[in-house]
């Protein structure tokens, strides 16, 4: 241990929720992102209780109307209320993002942890498979799959999850491998702990921060992927609104009503941006690299 490292001050990662928020509030960007996400989620999920206009109610006479009291954000090409569609669409978009992330983490975490902890041929097979999945253009596979298997939200979640779990698997694998070899894990074995207990008590808690960071960034990634899939017409199908398919729909109107496309585009960008910044902030807060020095 050189003196230089000794002098670095010790940051803590083993902090309670309260202290966590205290730390978070010091990272202005991440904190702003967090507040923004909080507001967006509240608006999207609670907003429809206040703004009760049916997002699917058409009114062809008032199509592409501008901003008014009745339609604060105007109407779309079929005269549907854009505000209401933004709120409901946001729900679907965020749920798809969250759902995809959940499955991504589940698949990736499981594969990574199992491969890392048990090693041997299980490791070899699982990690070779992970590498293979990483090196194939799986977006192409996703397109084919969605074209042919249908486009229900669940399907989209699964397709996104199945094409993006590899990164998490690698992170979890690396972390598991690292901590599995750590002396406190060996110490736990020496004390007579069973492998499962050691995994749960000593390995998983070290890996969780990385998973949290990865899942935050994963949501951002999933939202982007969903919107890209929607753009190609393979996303969640109308009349259900998502920001992605609203954007796709709006693209036809970039000449006559460009504002239709600006709104969902900005919404997606900001939410993804916020998740990315929040994730980066979390990484700084939770990364054991920063806490263990």
């Amino acid at each position: 241990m050189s003196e230089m490292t000794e002098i670095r001050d010790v940051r803590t990662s083993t902090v309670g929720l309260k202290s966590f928020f205290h730390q978070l509030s010091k990272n202005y960007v991440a904190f702003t992102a967090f507040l923004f996400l909080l507001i967006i989620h509240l608006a999207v999920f609670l907003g429809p209780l206040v703004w009760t206009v049916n997002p699917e109610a058409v009114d062809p006479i008032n199509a592409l109307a501008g901003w008014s009291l009745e339609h604060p954000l105007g109407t779309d090409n079929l005269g549907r209320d854009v505000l209401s569609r933004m709120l409901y669409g946001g729900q679907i978009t965020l749920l798809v993002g969250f759902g995809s992330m959940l499955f991504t983490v589940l698949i990736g975490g499981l594969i990574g942890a199992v491969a890392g902890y048990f090693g041997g041929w299980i490791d070899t097979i699982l990690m070779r498979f992970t590498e293979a999945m990483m090196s194939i253009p799986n977006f192409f596979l996703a397109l084919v799959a969605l074209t042919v298997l249908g486009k229900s939200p669940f399907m989209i979640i699964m397709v996104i999850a199945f094409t993006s779990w590899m990164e998490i698997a690698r992170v979890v694998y690396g972390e598991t491998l690292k901590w599995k070899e750590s002396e406190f894990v060996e110490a736990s074995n020496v004390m007579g702990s069973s492998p499962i207990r050691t995994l749960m008590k000593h390995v998983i808690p070290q890996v969780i921060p990385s998973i949290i960071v990865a899942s935050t960034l994963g949501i951002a990634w999933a939202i982007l992927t969903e919107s890209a899939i929607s753009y190609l017409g393979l996303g969640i199908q109308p009349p259900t609104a998502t920001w992605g398919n609203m954007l796709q729909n709006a693209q036809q109107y970039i000449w006559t009503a460009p504002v239709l496309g600006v709104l969902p585009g900005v919404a997606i960008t900001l939410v993804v941006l916020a998740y990315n910044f929040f994730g980066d902030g979390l990484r700084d807060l939770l990364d054991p690299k920063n806490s263990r020095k």
Partner: protein
Amino acid sequence: MENLPINQMNNREVLLEGRNVKKYFPIKEGLLSRNQKFVKAVDDVSLKIYKGETFSLVGESGSGKSTLGRVLLRLYDLTSGSISFDGVDITSIKPKKMRNIRKEMQVIYQDPFSSLNPRMKISDIIGEPLEINKIAEGVEKHNRIVELMELVGLDPTRMNHYPHEFSGGQRQRIGIARAIALNPKFILADEAVSALDVSVQAQVVNLLKDLQQKLGLTYLFIAHGLNIVRHISDRVGVMYLGNLVEVGEVEELYKRPAHPYTSALISTNPTPNPRSTKEKVILKGEIPSPSNPPSGCRFHTRCPFATDRCKNETPELVALSNSRSVACHYPLV
């Protein structure tokens, strides 16, 4: 300490014994390569550790001393040979049973940073062995933790702090408290004081000695600091490239090393005395790779006294006296 008479020596009870222990690590190679290569980390080592003594292993890095320690505790499976602990053959014992036996064998690690889970409180770390083995719960557990902390010289009021809030020496004390929580018979101290500052090192060494007396512990002490080893050990084993080249009573071994390697180690150890006139035996080159060790005596490539015989013939570890064995064709004593 005087040399014990032969009969007394033989009467001493063996706690841990390894016979012809080998530990080879396979080197990962391509799928297509036929002949698997190995790192021969421990190659045919036999030793006995008696109850209540401190046995030290010394040697350069890469000599296999840490591996040997872990093999003896069955933390690694051994490639061949046998190990018995307290009269029980633990060579191929089932993991579940081994977990039971291992309560008697604990480890103190070198790095007080990485051997403590950074996300656990001190009370949880020290309490962990109690919890795993269902020894104490609730108030009883709490009291035991306080007791252990006091025993190793830690302030029990800090039991709810995290490891990073402690200094290196204090962390090492936490590791010691955890190791003695189960009242083990045997402790492997793997470079337990090497990473500590000199002033703190002395505190920890004293603590270890105190505990040995109080609790009747047996230590396997792995270290490269020869001064500390001399201070703490009863007997010393010198390892070179996976082999045990010399074993003996500490005083005698330091005074009159029998193996050229032991002699070199001791002579090159810096003396905190500017007037020291000790003649140094400076060895040629460095320790070879354990994946491809030299033929014959493994030390012959660096030995100032090597002959052709050393190149071709592997010396056995033979007893020079009751208390001393050496693996050399031309021992210095």
